[in-house]
């Protein structure tokens, strides 16, 4: 099962290495990891997506809590969470296929960032699944490169 952990950390040197190291030591693969500062510049948020069973995720969050610079961990409930990811896709496309690719992008509300003679670069924001879907559709044209940010997520509602 996929978990999205939202981890508030003190913005101190070595924090990223400690957190990432802990996951690998306890046998977890991190699917994605996004880090950025929060409304408080001394505090950063890490959004970590991992694939894990219920029991080990509890153990790893407890171990994470023991890191001195970790302030708060929330295992986000998928139902009550909005998760987004941003991806940049460079797709092979020339004059013949350009219209079709742009049409696809439009359906997905993606932006065209750059067009060259042989490629189109698209920016898409959305759920993990939406980005996957667009990528699938573009595959037949030839995807030259994909850059994804990894998921970030926030809880719905007032909290």
């Amino acid at each position, binding site marked *: 099962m996929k978990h999205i952990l939202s981890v508030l*950390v003190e913005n101190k*040197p*070595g924090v990223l*290495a400690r957190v990432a*190291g802990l996951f690998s030591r306890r046998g977890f693969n991190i699917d994605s990891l996004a880090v950025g500062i929060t409304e408080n510049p001394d505090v950063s948020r890490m959004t970590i997506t991992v694939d894990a069973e219920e029991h080990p995720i509890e*153990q790893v969050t407890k171990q994470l*809590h*023991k890191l*001195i610079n970790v*302030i708060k961990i929330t295992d986000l409930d998928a139902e009550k969470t909005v998760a987004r990811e941003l991806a940049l896709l460079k797709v092979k496309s020339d004059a013949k296929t350009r219209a079709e690719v742009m049409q696809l992008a439009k359906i997905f509300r993606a932006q065209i960032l750059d067009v060259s003679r042989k490629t189109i670069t698209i920016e898409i924001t959305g759920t993990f699944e939406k980005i996957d879907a667009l990528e699938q559709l573009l595959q037949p044209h030839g995807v030259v490169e994909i850059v994804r940010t990894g998921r970030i997520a926030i809880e719905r509602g007032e909290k």
Partner: protein
Amino acid sequence: MKGSEAIIESLKAAGVEVVFGLPGGMVIPLYDALYDSDLKHFLVRHEQGAAHMADGYARATGRTGVCIATSGPGATNLVTGIANAYMDSTPMVAITGQARSDLIGTDAFQEADITGITEPIVKHSYLIKNPNDISRIFKEAFYIASTGRPGPVLIDIPADMQLAEIDYRPAGKIDLPGYKPTLKGHKKQIISAAKAIAAAEKPVFYAGGGMIIAGAEKELLAIAKLMKIPVTTTLMGLGCFPEDNDLSLGMLGMHGTGYANYAVTHSDLLIGVGARFDDRVTGKLETFARHAKKIHIDMDPAEISKNIAIDIPIVGDAKDVLAGILAELKAMKREPKKTAPWLDQVIAWKKKHPLHYKDEKGSIMPQFVIEEVNRITKSNAILCTDVGQHQMWSALFYTHTKPRHWISSGGLGTMGFGFPAAIGAKVGCPDKTVIDIAGDGSFQMNIQELATAVCYDIPVVVCILNNGFLGMVRQWQELFWSKRYSETAISCQPDFAAVAEAYGALGMTITKKKDVGDAIRTAIKSKRPAVLDFRVKPEENVFPMVPAGKSIDEMIGGHKT
């Protein structure tokens, strides 16, 4: 003030009196400041020794141990000692020199990324990048090392930070938003635990090293007596419950007593306190205490339900939680006789499966040496050990009655720990008799610290149970590998007594059973560092033993025949 002087000030502010270490290029400024200070520094012969001394000092006194090493190889020599302290939750602050901050990352001379290397084996670490942070970082480091579940904290200090001129200000209030150990147990959980204890017919306490750290022995004894509950301890918990009390079951687990393992297996309530359900204790997890409801009291929430599902978890300081449970129990109406049949059963097991060994004519039995140490010191010594068979015999055949009188490497099982740890313990408790039970293999891993013991006149008595083998490994080979003694015979030994004498210590070789007691008495009386080389029976085994992966009631050996 220089950064290096700020370090000394910070150490003093933390109440540090002694440090163990060895200088090098990247800590010369620190050692220069030390030169003028009244901190007592013990110069070791290998940095691993410094870390273990700090560890032994901490375990004996409850205070935070401090060790210092230079950058690069000095720092990496500390690694085993730091890992050892981490596994056994010893409060320790390790200070390392580092290459100049502008050279970090360039593979400078004697640069090693020690914060990176030690990342998985420290409670926390710091690399000082601004000399004005020194006082704050030291204050935090000592606070983190000694509170909650204690552990080692590393402070890596580039040489230029030590040299920098700063405006020293004592550290202000500690502000660690991510570090708030839970001390007080949850009231509702405490009540549930008390109810479960009152209702149990076959309860057993399973007490570990956390009991010693918390200093909760009085509370444990009070509950055990009040409710007539037998108590078994882990290797780390030895001394938290007096073994001369009828309710004591001694140690449990792989080399536990038969009666402790049977009692745990047949219990209907297991009360774990400051113990972590380690595989050396539980054996096969699926069958461990399989009939028992489980209470687990621990400072570290991550230990709860880590290996075994717990019915009543209580996070908090063992002393606080046990005091709470005791108060609840006292307030409750109880049927006093409820555990009587259980205690009868326990007594029957004790009678049927006592610890024993077969005396052999013409040999010194290793267990006998431990019994003699026990008798001569009246169970009053601080007993340190290395790792191996001699460690298990020390755990089993000595009567452990007091906390902080048993110092042994539990979690990491570090050969070479015992002797430097004993030196550290003696430094911390100069009025105590300190005995190190050593293996002939283990002792050679830090034998160089004889120089330290002699130089500073630290009279610890090393009793080598010299069996000519890496005995514990040999035992496994004998029992499970068809006696194929691959690389475990170490009969090519130095003359330990002569080595000791060469260092300036007292050395004795003992080959006859009748001389054992006298040798121990002479060594203790000499008030000198002493090494007693007991030539014990070479192929004696530690029994009972639970083979790896078996249930703890499936012991082999140790049954009286």
